[in-house]
């Protein structure tokens, strides 16, 4: 599979999902359980991605400069600092630690 094929297939899947909601009868999915599963899927996937992105190094787990960076990011989000600032600070914290170690 080439990178382009991955991008195109994933884009088709995402558009098909959006279109589905305009095609199927509303009664099918407005019930609480499917809506709850869809909302929690978003939470679970994002949390899983954070864990892998923070601790994963190929197929091993490592504790490195990314850990303090993500902790700093969590603290800033709790203080309601804007997204773009937090992302930049996280990058700076990790880069700074790598520079001195």
């Amino acid at each position, binding site marked *: 599979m*080439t*990178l382009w094929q991955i*991008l195109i297939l*994933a*884009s088709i*899947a*995402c*558009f098909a*999902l*959006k*279109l*589905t*909601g*305009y095609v*199927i009868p*509303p009664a099918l*999915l*407005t019930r609480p*359980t*499917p*809506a*709850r*599963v*869809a*909302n*929690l*899927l*978003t*939470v*679970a*996937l994002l*949390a*899983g*991605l*954070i*864990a*892998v*992105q*923070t601790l*994963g190094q*190929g*197929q*091993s*787990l490592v504790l490195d*400069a*990314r850990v303090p960076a993500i902790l700093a*990011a*969590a603290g800033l*989000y709790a203080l309601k600092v*804007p*997204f*773009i600032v*937090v*992302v930049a600070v*996280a*990058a*700076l914290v*990790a*880069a700074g630690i*790598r520079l001195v170690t």
Partner: protein
Amino acid sequence: MTPTPETSGAARASLAVGLATAAYGISFGALATAAGLDVWQTCFLSLVMFTGGSQFALVGVIASGGVAAGPSAIASAALLGSRNVIYALRMSPVVGSGWMKRIAAAHLTIDESVAVSTAQSTPAAQRIGFWLTGLLVFVGWNLTTLVGALIGNLIGDVSAYGLDAAAAAAFLGLLWPRLKHLQAQAVAVVAAVAAALLTPVVAPGVPVIVAATVAVVFGLTDWLGPRTTRDTEGAPLA
């Protein structure tokens, strides 16, 4: 259409949300190029996929597993895009009939357009909120994606600059507003632990997919659901 206080309010909300969201595009563009996409591929995602969470997820999986993790990357993007089905169902009566209109609406069905629309009180304001927010975010998101991709290309080596930590921080920013209830917090913790523990055991990209099953288990059983929380707090049930 004659402006009313409701429709002008919807227009103002659309503008504010459109500008705020555009900022995310810079980080997406930079992270996508850091993951190995070229500028065209990065812009293709923002133009054609156009659903931020799925775009970040796809790029995140490619960054850790490369092209070999393609199937997992596609599955992650699709699973994260599944909430758009629910959004589209909610927007269906707002958008109304007509095939071309519904296809255009499907493309613009994202967190922001739906959030602004559902916050409006009149049908006219809901329509304006949906279309205007969708269009403004589309334009802003694509412009800033290009800027981010060009910056990402310029600064080069990822880990030396901390862009991998920036990716994790970006995911955390998308997750943060969704953690208001105990159920969501529990799902996040269990999913994160599961994904980390599985990383050494299964192929790259797969841990995140398995973590998604945590949501299915909690969602189907409604374990620790908001209703239970209200009960224990003694507040009246709606």
